[in-house]
């Protein structure tokens, strides 16, 4: 047989064995490395996607919370305003009541003082009138005898 044909035959068989070897022992680890890489990248991308979604969600939540906090704050401020107003109103009412009370007290005092002064004045005038009458009559009026008269006079003043 032609030696070239025989060497070619041997080499072709060997080549087939080499291909088998490659398919059996070289291709699988290579493929698993490639697939591992693909999976890693896919996982990484998915994780990044997830993180982005989570971030967006968190942002939404933050915004919501902020909104709630703001409305709550407004409510509290409103309440505080109301409370302050009611406090002021109460204080005003108290103050007015106190003022009125003081005024009434003062007025009563003034009236009492005036009454006292009137009484004093009346007594003095009656005393003056008695002494004047004494002087006019140049005689002693029996104070006891005329007590009723004098008192009547004083009351008329």
């Amino acid at each position, binding site marked *: 047989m032609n030696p070239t044909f*025989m060497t070619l035959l041997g*080499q072709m068989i060997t080549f087939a064995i080499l291909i088998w070897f490659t398919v059996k022992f070289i291709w699988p680890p290579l493929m698993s490395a490639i697939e591992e890489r693909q999976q890693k990248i896919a996982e990484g991308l998915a994780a990044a996607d997830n993180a982005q979604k989570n971030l967006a969600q968190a942002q939404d939540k933050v915004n919501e919370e902020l909104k709630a906090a703001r409305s709550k704050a407004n409510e509290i401020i409103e309440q505080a305003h109301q409370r302050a107003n009611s406090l002021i109103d109460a204080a005003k009412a108290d103050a007015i009541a106190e003022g009125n009370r003081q005024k009434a007290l003062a007025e009563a005092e003034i009236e009492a003082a005036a009454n006292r002064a009137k009484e004093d004045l009346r007594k003095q005038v009656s005393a003056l009138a008695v002494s004047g009458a004494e002087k006019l009559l140049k005689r002693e009026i029996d104070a006891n005898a005329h007590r009723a008269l004098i008192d009547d006079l004083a009351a008329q003043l």
Partner: protein
Amino acid sequence: MILEGMLLEPSGGESGGGGLTGYIVHHLTHNVVYVAGQKLHFDSWMVALLLGLLGCFLLWTQARKATAGVPGKAQAFVELVVEFVDSQVKDSFHGDRRFIAPLALTIFVWVFFMNAMDLLPLDLPAGVVTAVAGEEAAHHSYLRWVPTADVNTTFAMSITVFFLIIFYSIKAKGGWGFTKELFTAPFHAHGAFAKIVLAVPNLFLNLVEYLSKPVSLGMRLFGNMYAGELVFMLIAGLFMSWITFPFGLVANSVWAIFHILIILLQAFIFMVLTVVYLAMAHEHH
């Protein structure tokens, strides 16, 4: 061509004679064409060119439709290779990698493809030619289709690397610094007299150092691939008799499987040494 004396070309390739000697002589003869009166190993040149184009095309098709999302299997494979090469370059070359990393990738892929030709059945083209044009035509047509088993190919690459080494040395040290270092390193001297005395051995050592790089690069790859090819031819001798045919199958299979490692390793070594040499040239002393 360069280094004509090292071609290890068998004398009287045409006549050859029969048997294993004739077989080996035939398979070690290059397909030579004459260009401007110079011999050109057309087979090495053409196969290297085609494989280079194939490598470029494969990487280009993947690079063109590369996606930032989940890659396809082919893209993932290319990414693995590129990442592997880039990390190798990053480890040894500290600086701008925009030229060095693609250079390393090119060397790795191209050398691997050229080495991988060794795994194809040696007599396949001969069988095709015999079938098409008859035995006589096959006897007179030559094809060595492992370009890296041709010293011209490996030296062409290593000399290109050599010029890059010179370029990076001058770039890093400046024209004057580079020239100065040729005469003042590795032996440093103080005083004018000592400097003049040491200039000659320094220059000699530097020339040896510089020239050893392309020679070792080119010879290492050539030697490995040439030896591998030769072993395949010797094993083919076992196929020439039906008695030794089964042993030939075993030997050829074992050598082919072992050779998968060698072709990868040699491509890797060529790439790494290129990067290391360039890194050495790039660094200041």
